[in-house]
């Protein structure tokens, strides 16, 4: 517990030192020679786009992943890699985005689960050491209340306290402010500063540059699995960091369809949406989409894009506001490619033939008795559209990700829809599948459909889009014609910076 106080005579070692850590998943090099130090008693921010490799690094540090190469030292001692137990013993504690708390137990019981392992009788109330620690670090928590009665901010505090009680000297927080209001964020940062002041180190993974610059001392930027920048927060400004995060990348605009704006087919007005916890994740969003446009919805994952698309697609009910989209007999009459194919866009237990009908079964062509010939023809066309080689009576869950997406897209693009909502249509796909799907969307727009798409890859969005909407914290912060959108501006807007004057 008090290991951090017994400093060695020569505290030259950083608390944690990563050297050449690499990890490959299939074809993807998620971490490519990652090296950086976590100094003692300070807050280090690890920033980067989705897929930059931040989470992989943290999972290696906490022993969940075994790296292919590299070393980690804690306090100058080599850490046994790939062992959560060893990482825990070395004092590495991780607070994930999804809390690992038992909701029916009280706060103290949750802590007791972590620290009283092997005790025969569980303790019921906090001891003085724990209370002292809470007081010193500024925790504002009632440990006698069951977790389910606590707000998300309090649960997060409890999670941090639990990790610290288990002896953590390095506390890694994954996107901790994504569930917090601005005031709660201030509270969290106050605690983080006190934790750092006590001699421990905090690693903060975040997308929100403005927040990070306030609390962190060191900044490490990752891109494409590598560390591309290491520096002090006081020497950094948002613009230069945004450049590091986005990098010096080029994209081609040849793919953009010729812009001839047609009629409006989608109107979204003053739309607000809540997530399943009731938090407002889309705020007062308004925009229109015209035929012939490819509108790219750009933003860091978790800023409300998916919820907005789900609401347009009919999977969520809005809190307030208005959506006008093509409807037939009160049902969606446009293409919607949801972010998750298996379980939303496709029913995993049903066959390919049946899934080719999902959402189309109400069309008059099939009738209430689902005319066999029409159903068969429909399945054939859906399968053939993107060249999926599969028997139509195979259960859909056996298909690969690319083929799943081809089935969804093949089905949704039947009957040439006027509007196409595509939520991360190329996520997780191999290069060939992604290219095929991109060109299908571009062709549809060229043929007169309005396409609204989101993507994890900036270049992908910008190479296809005729218009760019940037979302941050549930609001559309910019609506730009593609010609005016450059990577740097958009990178800054995505992470909450202002538009360049």
């Amino acid at each position, binding site marked *: 517990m008090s290991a951090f106080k017994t400093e060695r005579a020569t505290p030259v070692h950083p608390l944690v030192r990563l050297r050449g850590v690499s990890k490959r998943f299939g074809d993807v090099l998620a971490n490519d020679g990652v090296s950086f130090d976590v100094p003692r008693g300070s807050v280090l921010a690890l920033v980067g786009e989705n897929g930059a490799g931040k989470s992989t690094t943290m999972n290696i540090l906490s022993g969940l992943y075994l790296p292919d190469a590299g070393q980690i030292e804690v306090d100058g001692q080599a850490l046994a890699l790939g062992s959560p137990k060893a990482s825990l013993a070395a004092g590495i504690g991780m607070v994930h985005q999804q809390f690992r708390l038992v909701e029916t137990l009280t706060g103290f019981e949750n802590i007791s689960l972590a620290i009283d392992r092997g005790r025969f009788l569980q303790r019921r109330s906090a001891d003085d050491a724990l209370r002292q620690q809470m007081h010193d670090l500024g925790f504002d928590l009632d440990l006698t209340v069951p977790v389910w009665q606590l707000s998300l901010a309090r649960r997060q505090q409890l999670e941090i306290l639990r990790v610290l009680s288990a002896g953590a000297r390095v506390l890694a927080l994954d996107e901790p402010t994504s569930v917090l209001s601005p005031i709660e964020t201030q509270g969290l940062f106050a605690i983080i500063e006190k934790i750092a002041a006590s001699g421990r180190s905090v690693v903060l993974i975040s997308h929100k540059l403005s927040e990070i610059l306030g609390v962190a001392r060191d900044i490490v930027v990752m891109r494409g699995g590598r560390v591309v920048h290491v520096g002090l927060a006081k020497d950094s400004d948002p613009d230069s960091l945004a450049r590091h995060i986005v990098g010096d990348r080029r994209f081609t605009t040849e793919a953009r369809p010729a812009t001839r704006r047609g009629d409006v087919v989608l109107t979204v007005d003053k739309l607000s949406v809540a997530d399943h916890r009731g938090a407002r994740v889309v705020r007062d969003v308004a925009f229109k989409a015209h035929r012939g446009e490819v509108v790219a919805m750009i933003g860091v994952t978790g800023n409300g894009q998916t919820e907005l698309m789900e609401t347009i697609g009919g999977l969520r009910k809005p809190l307030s506001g208005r959506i006008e989209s093509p409807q037939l007999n009160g049902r969606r009459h446009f293409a919607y490619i949801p972010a998750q194919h298996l379980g939303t866009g496709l*029913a995993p237990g049903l066959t390919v033939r049946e899934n080719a009908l999902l959402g189309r*079964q109400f069309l008059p062509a099939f009738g209430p008795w689902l005319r066999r010939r029409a159903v068969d023809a429909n399945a054939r066309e859906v399968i053939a559209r993107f060249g999926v080689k599969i028997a139509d009576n195979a259960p859909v869950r056996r298909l690969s990700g690319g083929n799943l997406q081809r089935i969804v897209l093949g089905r949704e693009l039947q009957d040439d829809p006027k509007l196409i909502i595509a939520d991360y249509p190329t996520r997780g796909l191999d290069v060939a599948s992604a290219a095929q799907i991109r060109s299908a969307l571009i062709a549809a727009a060229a043929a007169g459909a309005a396409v609204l798409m989101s993507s994890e890859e900036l270049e992908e969005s910008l190479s296809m889009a005729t218009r760019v909407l940037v979302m941050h914290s549930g609001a559309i912060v910019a609506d730009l014609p593609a010609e005016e959108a450059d990577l740097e501006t958009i990178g800054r807007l995505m992470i909450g910076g202002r538009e360049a004057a």
Partner: protein
Amino acid sequence: MNLTMPFRLEPVLDEPRRGQAAIRLAVGACVALLVGAALLLASGYDPVVAYSALARGAFGSMNAISGTINKAVPIGLCAIGIAFAYRARLWNIGAEGQLYFGAFGAAGVGLFLPPSTPPVVALPLVLLAGMLGGGLWAFIAAALKAYRGVNEILTTLMLNYVAILWVAYLVTGPWSDPLAYSFPYSAPIIANAQPGRVFAGIHPGIIVLVAASLGLWWLDRSSRLGFNLRVAGDAPRAALYGGVNHRTVTLVALTGAGALAGLAGAIEIAGSTTRLQSGLSPGYGFIAILVAWLAQGRPLAIVFAALIYSGLLNGGFALQVSSIPPATGTILQAVLLLCFLAAATFGKYRIRRVPASQGSP
């Protein structure tokens, strides 16, 4: 935590071939008979005597056969309803109560129609009233599930007892037959609503069972409703995505199941008992749950499973004559289901030896 397992159960991904499935079921049945025989031996009875008495009671005479077929009708209809609701992954444990409430509806019409009502009107009216009664009873649970999210397993189960007691109240109180010497019976329904026996003691209900079975088969094969139920049962979010209203699905699936159970109640009254009575069903609605599972929800298999189970029920009565406890039939019903399900489940796995070096990490 560091135990090394030299063997591992692995799921088999391929669908079983028809022959394999049949072998599995045959093995399951043999194991069931052996377990049943062991139980009989342990309680001091000769299994051969017991089994032959059981078989004779079920299929040994024209009388036994017609009784078995007649009892298969309510079991099968309830089971088809249960399988129908399970298309949407809804558990109807309330077929027994729905059967009783359907019988109440059927009797309510059959007792009070003018006796001169022609049979072509009277019988359909009685059957329709039965479906309405059973449907209404299931609708209570369906609406609670659809609008309040109340678990349908509990509501359908508990409503059983309400319906059974309601019928008991009627036949000992307001509807009791003054000529029945205080037996818990109502008066007979009008003669024109009773179809009688068509052939050797078999009443025409079996036609309804076969029709219902074909109906479910058709619904599965080629109907928007069947498709919607399957989607909703497989992936609720995909159903929402595909424009399928989960409330409608819940209401239709459970109410439909109730209507079939209610139809079974009406057929019991019109075809067998001719009147409403306590103990109208010896647990048809519960046996039907076993039958639906045994047949894995397949419409035509349900008819055969219903015949086997009604044979066990019917033969169970005959055991008493050989002074063997009739519970033997009930035990076999349960053991048979367990063995069949075990056979079907184990069939989805294979056992593989894992080399020791690949043991725990």
